[in-house]
């Protein structure tokens, strides 16, 4: 075989290899572009961060669980994620409201004896889960 022929074959292999490499790289790029996320990544991050920022776990500071009172009503004080739907239920009363602020404070009637008071929070933000808390308050008329 002539020297020129060997050189031409060698160049052909080199160019062929380079062309193949170029095509593989280009194909990968096309595949990546096809699967890319439509929403910009930073918006998702921002939304998650905002959700975490707004989240306030349900807290009931008053009354305490197991408290004994001698009045037919109490004040319930607590904290929950802003703009949630708050449902406070007991055997004598169901109270529904939205909390414009994190803190809420409501008067609640009691029945004589044991009162199971249950607070359920439905956050406006669908990414946040429903929260609930139950406590027992005893309205008793006893002489100590």
């Amino acid at each position, binding site marked *: 075989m002539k020297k020129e022929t060997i050189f031409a074959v060698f160049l052909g292999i080199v160019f062929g290899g380079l062309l193949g490499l170029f095509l593989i790289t280009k194909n990968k790029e096309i595949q990546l572009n096809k699967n890319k996320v439509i929403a910009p990544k930073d918006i998702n991050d921002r939304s998650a961060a905002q959700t975490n920022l707004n989240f306030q776990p349900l807290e009931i500071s008053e009354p305490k669980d197991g408290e004994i009172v001698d009045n037919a009503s109490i004040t319930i004080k607590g904290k929950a994620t802003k703009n949630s739907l708050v449902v406070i239920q007991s055997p004598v009363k169901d109270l*529904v409201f939205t909390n414009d602020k994190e803190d809420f404070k409501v008067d609640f009637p009691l029945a004589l004896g044991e009162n199971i008071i249950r607070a359920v929070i439905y956050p406006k933000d669908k990414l946040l889960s429903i929260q*609930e808390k139950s406590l027992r308050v005893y309205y008793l008329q*006893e002489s100590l």
Partner: protein
Amino acid sequence: MRKKLFNYLTISLLVFILARSVIGQTATSSPTVKPTATATDESAIQGLKNKIADKVAEIRKNNNRAVAGRVLSTSATSIKIKTEDQGDFEIKPDETLTKYYQITGAQQKEIKNEDIQKDDYIIVTGVISEKTITANSIFVDQQYLVASGKITEVDKDNYIVKVLTPDKTVYNLSIETFTKQQIVNIKTLEAESIGFSKIIAGDSIHFTVKIKGGEKNNEYSAEKILIVPQEYFIK
């Protein structure tokens, strides 16, 4: 001279006797002062007694705790109860101090210790030491269950609603004629009365039931229900 001396002596004796009688008078007047001093002491003692009684009442009130549960067994000296979430307790009533009451609606009447029966639901107040309660008062009361969840099934033929709670408990609620049925108006958030046909699977439900003690398969007659429609969450 003798007569003069006699007179002096007589006068001196009289003065001495008079002086003694005066001393005697002051001595007899002292008892009238003494009772005043006793009354002051007594009021001081009474005040102290009241202070001690107030302090004891305050300590009793501060240490007064309540536990509710169903009676497992009763005897002359103790009552055993099973609570919903704190295990079993032994109650030690005091023969003279412990008082017993029956709560019916908004009324409470005093009963006797023999009136406490097995399976009664009682509230006990007193000083708790580990799993023993030294009872001040015992109240027989009605037990309620207050819960919420999602409606998974509505049986329109038998008026039964199946509810799944967040802790994965399934309740079968029988909607009776006496059941107070309400729905939250999604615009005003007011609770409005509804009929059974308005209850839809997928809605959130808050319910209250009376517990009698012998229920099986979480089947209860609902006392009241409050529906939060699913439309509220998609508005």
